[in-house]
């Protein structure tokens, strides 16, 4: 088996914690995991992307070749658009539809595309997409900071690779003890946001 996963978003959205959770989950199953991150400008609202490669065989490159990611998990619409070239036509995408405008868009120096335009582009790769407002759900549960956990719940539901109970155990180990219950709640909420057949 082999799963190539792109997790992309904006610095501060909890991208790294999400990729660590997925990596821990896969390692717990005895699989090989290699990841790669853009870091550096992450604290300054920069574009952040993690490549995660999971396999029961040897993995070489830490970056996922264009057109071959099984899943694109976009924490932000424009970031999903930026990395759509990684996604395989047979793949799935999950996009959190709440935009984080760029500084230049805010200042009227650049144009943020409409959500419809972004989805239309993503659908050119595959129609297997889930467009969900995970930020709104996290805010409803008390804190927008849990958007990443809601998205992990969605990912767990969308991909057969993940078992819900096992994923919860992984999360319990990496989130702060005092925030454990609320994070598990966010994960469950994300999980229930998707109806699969």
């Amino acid at each position, binding site marked *: 088996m082999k799963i190539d996963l792109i997790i992309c978003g*904006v610095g501060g959205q909890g991208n790294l914690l999400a990729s*660590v959770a997925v*990596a*821990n989950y896969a*390692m717990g199953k005895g699989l*090989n*995991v*290699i*990841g*790669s*991150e*853009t*870091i*550096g*400008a992450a*604290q*300054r*609202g*920069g*574009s952040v992307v993690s490549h995660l490669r999971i396999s029961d065989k*040897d993995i*070489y*490159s*830490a*970056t996922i*070749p*264009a*057109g*071959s990611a099984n899943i694109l998990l976009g924490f932000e619409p*424009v970031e999903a*658009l*930026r990395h*759509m*070239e*990684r*996604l*395989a*036509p047979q793949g799935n995408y999950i996009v959190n539809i709440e935009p984080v*405008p*760029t*500084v*230049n*868009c*805010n*200042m*009227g*120096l*650049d*144009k*943020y*595309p409409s959500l419809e*335009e972004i989805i239309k*582009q993503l659908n*050119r*790769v595959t129609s297997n997409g889930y467009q969900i407002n995970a930020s709104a759900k996290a805010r409803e549960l008390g804190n927008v900071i849990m958007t990443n956990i809601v998205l992990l719940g969605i990912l767990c539901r969308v991909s057969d690779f993940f078992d819900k109970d096992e994923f919860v155990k992984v999360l319990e180990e990496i989130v702060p003890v005092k925030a454990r219950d609320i994070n598990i709640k966010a994960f469950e909420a994300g999980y229930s946001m998707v109806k699969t057949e």
Partner: protein
Amino acid sequence: MKRYIMGNEAMAWGALESGVRVVTGYPGTPATEIVDGCLQGDNVYVEWSANEKIALEMAMGASLCNMRAMAVMKHNGINYATDFIMHLNYTGVRGGLVLVGADDPSGNSSQNEEDTRILLHTYGHLPIFDPSSPAEAKEMIKEAFTLSEETGSCYILRPVMRICHSRSTIDIQGQKQLDRQPKFEDDRSRFVMSAVTEAKAGGKMRPLWRHSLLNQKQAEFSKYAEDSSFNHLEEGEGKVGLVGCGIGYTYIKEAERILDKKFPVLKLGTLPLPKSKVINFLKKVDSVIVFEELEPVVERMIKQICYEEDLKVKVMGRESFLPGEGELTSELVIQALTDMNLVSHPAEAVRSEIPVPIRTRTQCIGCQHRGLLSALKQVARKNKAIVTGDIGCYDAGSFPPLELQSTIFCMGSSIPMASGVHKTGIDQPAMAIIGDSTFFHNGLIGLVNAAFNQSNMTVVLCDNSTTAMTGFQPHPGSGEKIGNVEAPYIDAGKIGEALGVKTRVVNPYLLEETKDAIAAAVKEPGTSLVISRAPCHLLNMRKTKQPYFEQRSVKMIPENCNGCKLCITDLGCPSLYYVEDEDKVYIDENNCVDCGLCADVCRRGALVL
């Protein structure tokens, strides 16, 4: 114990498992976490040095005491340390000395991209390990320490960003302590590099003699390369061989997996090359493609081998066939094989047809540099000043919307460049803006030169008491050193006074005061220093949980806004947003931290306290 860690941490463990005693470096992406990682060891001295040359010189001092030492830096640091490297190659080392020079092909987090193998091997004649994975990088560091002591030479590890920043499962064996006490022994004919005659070399000049010894060393380096398990041959189909240097090998393996094909492959991880292995490989193929980061270093060496051995093999790579710039990818390997008609692999990637807005780096909301950049821009505009820039968070002032600094080159260059601007006799004021870590790195000497040669210019020092851009590493003006340990505070203001430079210290959150100080400095003769001093907002919030500035809540009065966008072009806070339909600028209450600066900039009474 197996752990899922960053490549940089894996390299730190390689050093700890080698019994390293002294680790030095200057922060720089992609290498920074290698130094931090070494803090996990006991009885290891780890420091952030003021700059990379000092870091390497420190490590050499430790090596002279027969202890193992490692200096860590990015490629720009290697450039800066070159003068020392070009002596250390002649003298050799005593205790194992490993220099880690991390390259950033494609310049993802750098001002330029370069291949330090040219500087360190082609020019410096030092042996290099070029890792294909984090796990291999860790093993190479251990081997480098061993060989450094066996050959009495400095060994280099040259990881690229994709090695440094990747995460994988690494086997950690734990720190090793060497049973060794520091001991200094004189050997002046070796460690006193000077233009004197050398009696033991028959009266030859010492530099010439040491150079000949370095040349003789090459055979030893070559022998180790020949025997090294980091170089190997793989059988495959066809007459086109693929040469993978460092991470180039990884991309070849990835391409083979995707294509489900096996090519003849030569994996290379050392410089000098394992010549017989290369010749054996060349004898099996008609042509080779060399995949290396970043320049045609190995490609040219293989061409030379073909010439010397009279082998009719076509050698392709970065010089002609592959792109001459930018990082390698597995896609690029597949493209090359497609261009050679060896495979047919239609690209499946679908790219966006609409423009994707970029996320430019800017100052954080609440950043102390924002007030300074705004003040400086206003004063510079009024006086038609030329502003040279330097490297650090504040350098984002050279991007839209501020577009203040006219230059960014390398660490510390802002001050001498502004001096040069002034010395032409131009009738515009010359100004330099530089950060505190950069100032201590290599800016200080530029200020000394400006004061000494009486440059009529203003140096603006953005002092946030940390190296914020690379993740808050301390520097001589921080009052603490690595590991949050208290350290003497070196006051840049006192340095300015000692140089006879008129020095002013301002709080950049007080816009008018800051403007007045800069304006006064511009008008006075001689070299002036304006220190804009306030702690990094992010770091300060982390430490004290409250802002350094007096919180001032700003209200937006829509009817007063005429859409002049002065708050954007003269301040550019990410918390401000422009609504095109209304031609007005609003405040995003979700992320505004009440620094109040936008109210100081607005002249229409639209942003008011």
